[in-house]
Structure formats: structure tokens, C-alpha cells
């Protein structure tokens, strides 16, 4: 049974007003436990609205969200408990920091869960460790941290709830390449160690290709594609048509293919590209030897 599922999920903004707009249009997807799903789509494709349904921040206009097979809106009064199981970290999460110390800020979620002081303490410590925030930073004011540290502290605030499903909306937006690599690495590490399910919303197909096992593509409020990285990215010309930037290496291999070379075009990173070229070269050498 999938851990998280949407059934014909639709959401309409401003129903009955002249500004009525369908933001999510009958999306049905199933996400298995332990999966790392990349969610891509350009701004306005409905991806951010979709993920806010998954933890019950937005109530669907029609359709349902099932967590462990149960409709999350079956008992609307218990919707808060869903938010502890499906953790959502918003874009630019550092703008939501508020407490006097980093420790208290990270503890906000676990405390809302009603956990004991000891349990809160251990969760804060381990969340801070996952995002490599040094222990001495925990007693500082979150507003005194550097940009990258603030971002990581805010992500730790969601990790500390130890959700079964972790959703991150563009966790690397606005960071420099170094900051981006650090955070992506930490998320991947977290997912491996915890075995939890992760959804990563991103504009960067390269980042998604690097970390995820499956990809969900949103386009014009609909789920345009949902499948493994290779299944989705082989349709790169369609993706480009949706205004998505496909990785440069992929474009290069598509170019080689168009020139008649027998290359595999499921190549998204420079490393994969190198391996593919080396494979061809060694095959040719092998061929020449026989």
C-alpha cells in the first residue's frame, strides 16, 4: 500500500468569483514508502498548491488525499496530527524563524506535538546534527546566523518533527552552488538513514536527477508525467516544451543522438555523461580488437 496517495485531487481558487482558477486538476498519484520523489514544473504549474494538500494545509475542492490509506480529511478536527506525519518545509523557510534561540525554534514543532521535554531535546539535537548545525549555534539567536545556516536551521525545524513523509519546497532556492550542494547532500543523507519518504519540489532538473528515484512533472495544473527518472527524462523534448530547462548534458547527448551516434540519452549529470562516452569508446576499441 502506498504511504501517500491522491485520488482525483482538484483545487479551485476563488470559486464563484471572476478570478476563479483551477490550480490543481484531478491529480491521482501514489507514493510508496521510502521513495524519493522529485516534483518539477514551472511557477504556476500547481506544484506548490499540490504539496500543500498533502499535509492538509489546503482542503481539496474535490478528490481526496490518503495517508496510509486513510482520508486525511475524514476527521477534520485531527488535521493537525497529519501535519506531524507529513512535514512540509516551505520555500525560503528562514523567513519563518521567530524564537529567541535556534534551539527554541527547532523545538517549536516537537513541542506542538506535545512531546516530553527529553524527547524534544533529543529530537532537536539530532535534527541539528542532520543539517550540521554546530551545537554552540543552538543557543544563538536565529537572526544572527549566516544565510545558509538560517536555511538549515529552518529545515531542522521540520526534520525535528520526524515526519514519515518529508516535503521540501525548493530548499535550495537562492543559495550559491556550495550552499545548494550541502543541503541536497544532507537531505539525501537523511532520507537514506531514516528511510523516510521525501518529496523535493525543484526547478532544477539536474538537482532532481541527482537525488530522486521518481519524478512527478506538473504542467498547467495537471500531473503531466509521473515515473522513474529515466522514464520521465527520456521525454526531454516534451519537458522543454513545458518551459522546463533540461540539463545541459542531456541536451548534448540528445544532440549527439540527432547526429546519428548510438548514445544513451538518459544522461543528466557530467559524471553520467563521462561514463557514457567512456562506454562508447571502450566498445569501439573492443570492436576494433575483434
Amino acid at each position, binding site marked *: 500500500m502506498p504511504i501517500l496517495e491522491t485520488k482525483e485531487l482538484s483545487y479551485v481558487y476563488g470559486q464563484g468569483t471572476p478570478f476563479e482558477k483551477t490550480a490543481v486538476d484531478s491529480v491521482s498519484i501514489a507514493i510508496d514508502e521510502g521513495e524519493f520523489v522529485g516534483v518539477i514544473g514551472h511557477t504556476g504549474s500547481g506544484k506548490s498548491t499540490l504539496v500543500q494538500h498533502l499535509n492538509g494545509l489546503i482542503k481539496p475542492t474535490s478528490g481526496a488525499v490518503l495517508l496510509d490509506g486513510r482520508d486525511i480529511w475524514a476527521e477534520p478536527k485531527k488535521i493537525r496530527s497529519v501535519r506531524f506525519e507529513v512535514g512540509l518545509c516551505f520555500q525560503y523557510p528562514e523567513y519563518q524563524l521567530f524564537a529567541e534561540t535556534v534551539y527554541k525554534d527547532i523545538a517549536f514543532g516537537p513541542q506542538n506535538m506535545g512531546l516530553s521535554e527529553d524527547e524534544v531535546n533529543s529530537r532537536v539535537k539530532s535534527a541539528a546534527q542532520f543539517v550540521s548545525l554546530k551545537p554552540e549555534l543552538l543557543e544563538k539567536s536565529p537572526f544572527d546566523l549566516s544565510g545558509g545556516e538560517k536555511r538549515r536551521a529552518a529545515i531542522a525545524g521540520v526534520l525535528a518533527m520526524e515526519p514519515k513523509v518529508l516535503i521540501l519546497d525548493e530548499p535550495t532556492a537562492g543559495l550559491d552552488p556550495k550552499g545548494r550542494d550541502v543541503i541536497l547532500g544532507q537531505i539525501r543523507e537523511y532520507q537514506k538513514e531514516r528511510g523516510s519518504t521525501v518529496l523535493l519540489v525543484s526547478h532544477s532538473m539536474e538537482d532532481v536527477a541527482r537525488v530522486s528515484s521518481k519524478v512527478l512533472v506538473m504542467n498547467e495544473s495537471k500531473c503531466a508525467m509521473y515515473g522513474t527518472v529515466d522514464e520521465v527524462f527520456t521525454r526531454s523534448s516534451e519537458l522543454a516544451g513545458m518551459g522546463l530547462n533540461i540539463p*545541459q548534458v542531456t541536451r548534448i547527448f540528445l544532440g549527439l543522438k540527432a547526429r546519428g551516434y548510438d548514445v544513451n540519452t538518459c544522461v543528466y549529470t557530467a559524471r553520467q555523461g563521462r561514463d557514457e562516452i567512456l562506454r562508447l569508446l571502450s566498445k569501439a576499441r573492443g570492436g576494433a580488437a575483434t
Partner: protein
Amino acid sequence: MTNIIETKDLQFEYTSEEEGAQVVLNGVDLKIRKGEFVAVLGHNGSGKSTLAKHFNAMLLPSGGKCFVAGMDTADEEKRFDIRQTVGMVLQNPDNQLVATIVEEDVAFGPENMGVPPEEIRKRVDEALKAVGMYEYRRHAPHKLSGGQKQRIAIAGIIAMQPACIVLDEPTAMLDPRGREEVISTIHRLCSEMGITIVLITHYMDETVDADRVVVMDDGRILLSGTPREVFSQVDELKAVELDVPQATRLIYRLQKAGVKGLPAGVLTDDECIEVLSNLLEVNGCPSSKPRN
């Protein structure tokens, strides 16, 4: 006067209560020619934004000099002339628009300069056309996309008719579409209107089409040259944790894996495809299509 901006051994430091004296810029010598498109690349804390703020006298050097069109930025009387010569676009598209209507925001700069009303009207219309936002002139800024807001901010600077525009990470908060809009707009301003562009960024792919790339690290200029010259130094860039284009990285990785006869500094898709098809051809992996 061919240099619009010139810095001589530029130093900048400040004192913070907690950490004492902090050196941000440590002897920067840079000349930017009129009409040039210069990209300044560096990660956070490299000093690139601090450097940019010296170009329009928002910051003044602690040591050394900074000249804008021959004017010393330390000369307080020249401050408004300097800010008219070098316009600045900032990172957050939401926080730099003043007025509630697009065209009135664009008029803000010329109004401050005391330009006569008819002339402002003309400049505003021209500036909005230059960034392709003329049809949005009566819109409210908060309803526009990030890329559109940033283009309005650029129009607001163009209306001041500067010789040079400095953009301080203008795309950091934009989606890929917005980034593309902004980058193509500033390229057009440079090539069609002859405006000197200084683009501060940490996205290396935005610098590939620049005339010159300047890499900053630790308050100094680490590398400077054409994109091809700069990006062929993969090891140096990696050492300061900066990216190079995937095409460059792919060729670099192949070289490291012992593949011979590959040129350095491959930047674009087409170059890379050309290089790789040559490589495959020479090594006996023929194409199924005949080459012309």
C-alpha cells in the same frame, strides 16, 4: 575616457562588535570599459556584492580608490552624478519598487533628478519598451511575476539614462523563466543601447555569454578573462567551490579519465557536441548519419 569604472587597490573593512575588524575587500584592481558586459562570479561572502556597492557610492572605500567616469566616489558633491551614471538593480524584486503603478515606479528616478515632466514621460515609455513591459505600464507591481518585477526595476534604472547598470544578484530569487527574461534583457541593453553591464551572480551559466568574467574569492580577484579562459581553469574554480558549465565539466572529467585530444574551455552545447562527435569519429564510433 574609455573606462567607466576603475578601482585602484580597493580595500573595504568594517568593525563588528562581536568579531572585530572584518576585511571584505582586500586590494581589488579592476577596470571596466564602456559598453562591456562584465560578469562578477563568486560565492556568498566572496565580497562581490560589497564591490558592486562601491560602483555607485553606496559604500566608500576604506583604502584605495574607486572612480566612476573619472569621478572619485569619495567626492560627496559628485554623489548624485555618480548614481546617475551607474544605476543599480538589487536582488529582491519585491523590495525595490516604490510606486503602486508600474509607470509611476519607472518615473521615480527621473523625478528625483528633476527631469521635466514631458521628458520623463518619454523616458518612461522608452524604458518600458526596452525591457518589453510597455503593455504592463498601468498594472500594479505586486501582481507581476518575479521576472517581470525585475524588468520593471531595470526600466526604472534605464529611465535615469545611466552609462552603466550594476545588477547585484538580480536572478537569485527568480525561477528559470524569470532568470532567462532578465538575462536576455540585459544582454539586449548592452548590445543595442551600448549600456555597460556589470552582472553580479553566483550562477555560472549566466556568465557564459559575457564579454568578461571576473571571479572573486575572499575579497580578491581570483581570475579574470573571457568566459572560455576562465572556465578552462576547472581546478581553480573547484578549489573555491564554484561551478563550471556541465559541458565544461563533462570534457574535464573525460580528460581526467585519460581521454586525449580534448580542448579546454568548452562552454556551449554546440561546441561540446562538435568536440564529442569528433572524438567518437576518431575513435571509431561512426555516426549512422553521414556528416556534411
